[in-house]
């Protein structure tokens, strides 16, 4: 039980450290690209990187559990945000909000698909086809 407690503390520490880095990176992107564009840029680039990372992790054994927790659950999930996206959509003029919603979904999901395909090219072994 003590070892499990230490393991949990390590996981929480990795998530917290990753969260600090991811939120800071999003803040920096928002400072460079004010308004809706900053959130869009973070959400799309984060979806690309997370798609690559998670599919790469599924295909190969190169990524350990702790690295995945730090980078996926910590950094990349915190780098992107749904709450800011939802509030910005609600506050925008209707036409802008609709375009922002559809654009974020199209580009974000498309970016995750690109990340998945890049992971497949990095490791093209057919026996590594991902079972999901």
């Amino acid at each position: 039980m003590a070892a499990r407690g230490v393991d949990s503390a390590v996981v929480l520490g990795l998530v917290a450290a990753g969260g600090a880095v991811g939120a800071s990176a999003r803040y920096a992107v928002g400072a460079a690209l004010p308004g809706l564009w900053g959130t869009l840029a973070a959400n799309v680039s984060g979806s690309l990187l997370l798609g690559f990372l998670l599919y790469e992790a599924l295909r190969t054994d190169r990524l350990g559990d702790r690295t995945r927790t730090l980078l996926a659950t910590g950094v990349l999930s915190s780098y992107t945000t749904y709450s800011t996206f939802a509030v910005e959509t609600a506050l925008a003029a209707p036409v802008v909000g609709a375009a922002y919603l559809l654009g974020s979904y199209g580009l974000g999901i498309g970016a995750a698909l690109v990340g998945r395909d890049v992971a497949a090219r990095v490791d093209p072994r057919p026996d590594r086809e991902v079972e999901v």
Partner: protein
Amino acid sequence: MSPLTALGAVPDPALVAAGGAGGAVGRYLVGSAVDRGGSFPLGTLTVNVVGSFLLGLLTFLPVGGDVSLFVGTGACGAFTTFSSFSVATVQLWDGGERGRAVAFVAANTLLAGGAVALAAVLAGAS
């Protein structure tokens, strides 16, 4: 005035980083509590809806400045996630769960949008 006025001495990026650490841990804990091996990403949906409600309250009340950076940009921003939303949608679709993929996108949109609207009503915005 507010006890959080003391945060004024803390640089903005540090507020965002500290909030982000807390938000990410909150997302991990809520996500692991809610996701118990189901094939629907209920954890991601839950944090996105709850986080959108909280950020809505913060926005419409409105709370500004340092609290907004710490709780809004940092904690609510990191508590919710768009990248997991995108990737979970792709994984559901790839797995042949196309109806669930569409339902997941619709549920995030409608419930998070509804949560923001509810926050606006509760905060007295109109």
